[in-house]
């Protein structure tokens, strides 16, 4: 559905996209992940053909993107990162205004606008101007303006930034519903957990490059720090840390909440090996839990940088 091939985009000296490639299939939610400034918005604007780019190719719906390609444009929806709504128009009018850029038939548009209002649950606020809406509700309005015309392909640029937990869950739920209706969604965020829950596939970006992509599973398999096991011991002992480090395949041992966190290399038998080892040394533990690496770990390993919310 989307194919982006070796796109290079420069802002003067700054390289915002550095041979960036990625592809999206119909009906999936693709997450573009990465820290602020990594080029997510730039990538979207290139796909929308709002921005010129220096090199590369972009195809949407099998057609080269071009600002005059209205057939492609009419099937796309965008929810920009910043609020793009009219202060002077109320909720209903804002949605109707933007929907009207795509849908000219009045009856059809009315039905679509009503549906969008219901979708973001702003029915109670339809006559409110944006100034009277809370931040989360404004975000919902911003979303409604982008989806009312039922696009086949939807770009959502950090729709959950600065949104309260309730609105955030509501938005995420809505995105799942749209996917269920067959919409393909390109979703950018720098909240990795959110992407982990929501996206079918992810593209991890750093400094304008695609450094890894795939499902969470595939990403976990690409890195070497595979597994972490947290152990709590009954007795505090200075030697524990050193002992644990003797175990084969241990990368390092750190402390977390008074427990020990053992980082293992990618290997099948880390947990049984650890249990055997502790029994042989007579170390009695109170709790033991194994965790897969999270997207943050993956990001850390791939880029050498922490990505914090």
């Amino acid at each position: 559905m989307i194919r982006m091939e070796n796109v290079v985009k420069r802002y003067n000296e700054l390289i915002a996209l550095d041979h960036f490639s990625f592809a999206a299939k119909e009906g999936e939610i693709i997450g573009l992940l990465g820290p602020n400034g990594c080029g997510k918005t730039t990538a979207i604007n290139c796909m929308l053909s709002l921005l010129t780019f220096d090199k590369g190719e972009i195809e949407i719906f099998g057609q080269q993107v071009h600002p005059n390609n209205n057939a492609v444009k009419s099937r796309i929806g965008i929810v920009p990162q910043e609020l793009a709504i009219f202060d002077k128009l109320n909720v209903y009018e804002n949605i109707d205004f933007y929907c009207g850029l795509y849908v000219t038939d009045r009856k059809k548009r009315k039905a679509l606008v009503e549906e969008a209002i219901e979708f973001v649950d702003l029915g109670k606020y339809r006559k409110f101007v944006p100034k009277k809406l809370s931040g989360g509700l404004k975000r919902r309005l911003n979303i409604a303006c982008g989806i009312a015309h039922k696009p086949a392909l939807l770009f959502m640029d950090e729709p959950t930034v600065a949104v309260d937990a309730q609105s955030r869950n509501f938005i995420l739920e809505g995105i799942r519903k749209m996917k269920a209706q067959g919409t393909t969604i390109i979703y950018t965020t720098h909240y990795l957990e959110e992407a982990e829950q929501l996206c079918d596939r992810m593209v991890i970006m750093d400094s304008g490059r695609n450094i890894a992509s795939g499902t969470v599973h595939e990403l976990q398999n690409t890195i070497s720090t595979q597994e972490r096991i947290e152990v709590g011991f009954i007795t505090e002992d200075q030697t524990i840390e050193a002992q644990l480090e003797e175990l084969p395949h241990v990368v390092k041992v750190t402390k977390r909440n008074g427990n020990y966190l053992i980082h293992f290399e990618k290997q099948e038998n880390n947990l049984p090996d650890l249990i055997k080892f502790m029994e042989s040394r007579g170390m009695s533990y109170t709790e033991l839990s194994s965790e897969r690496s999270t997207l943050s770990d993956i990001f850390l390993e791939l880029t050498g940088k922490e990505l914090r919310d």
Partner: protein
Amino acid sequence: MVILRMIRYLISINFKDFGYWFWTLCYPLLMCGLFTMTTSSMGGTEIEDIEVGIEPGHPVTEVLGTIDFIVLTELGESEAVDRMKAGEMAGYVHGSTELELLVTETGINQTILQSVLDQIRNVSASGIPFQNFDYDQEYIIPNSQNAEPETVLFYALISMISIYGMFSAIEFVSTVQPNLSLMGARFSASPYSKYKFLFSSVASSLLLNVLSNTVVLSAIAIFYQMSLFTELWSTLLLIFIANMTGIGLGLFIGLIPGINANIKTTFAVIFMITLSFLAGLMGPEIRTIIGENMPWLNTLNPLARMTDTMYRINFLGNYSDYLPTIGLLLAYALLLFGVTLLVLRRKQYDSI
């Protein structure tokens, strides 16, 4: 239908803007109030016909006859004096070698008449025969403005409000440009045509400003009891064309990249006030000074031209300047629209 809907939304966006109501309606009405308070007798500002007597067969008879507001009667001096004393005649022109004006009292009509004769004297001193120069053209204006300077204030004010459409145009054109506003990205990503949007912007700015102009002009006529327009339709056409110029200016200013709409509006206000000031909004003296030192500025300043032309056609019945002024205003408008179209054609940006 698509365009009508866009126009409706754009108008409704403007209507909800306090700035629109204040600047296009309250502010000009306040200014009018101020003008009337500071000037003494604004009752009837139009020049009424001036009855003038002249020595039979006098060489300037023909020239004076071409001036709209002068009604000439050929008669003898003593008869003229009687009629002047009866208040039926303002002055008597006589003297075969020297051009002389006989009056029995002083007043505004006598001042105007005196200045007309001064002009004729000046011109004949420069060697051009009276018969050969176009009297209406240049010679009357500065002096008769001195006679009724307040009128110029009103014409300058009307000129100013007729280009007010530029403020909504600035807003509208920013809205559709992705490098200027957040809404612009939405517009550009949609299949909606920028030309339709441009047309809708121009139409709604025009409607809005024509509406507010009508209110202000009616208010001037009703509340201040002023009859500024003897040539109503020609004046309205002039105001309408100036509306287009104003909108063109707004579109042009709105397109300047890298500056936000508020700064542009501030810039537009300063620009407009400057033009108005130079056109005589703060008093006609400035006009005279510019006229003497930088006449090209008066020629190019659309507000000065408009003020001048409104004064000439309504006050003096002089149309010689009318078409050139309309031409200039139209030329500005077309030039600015053209540039706007060229810039708006652009669809992709290096940076947004």
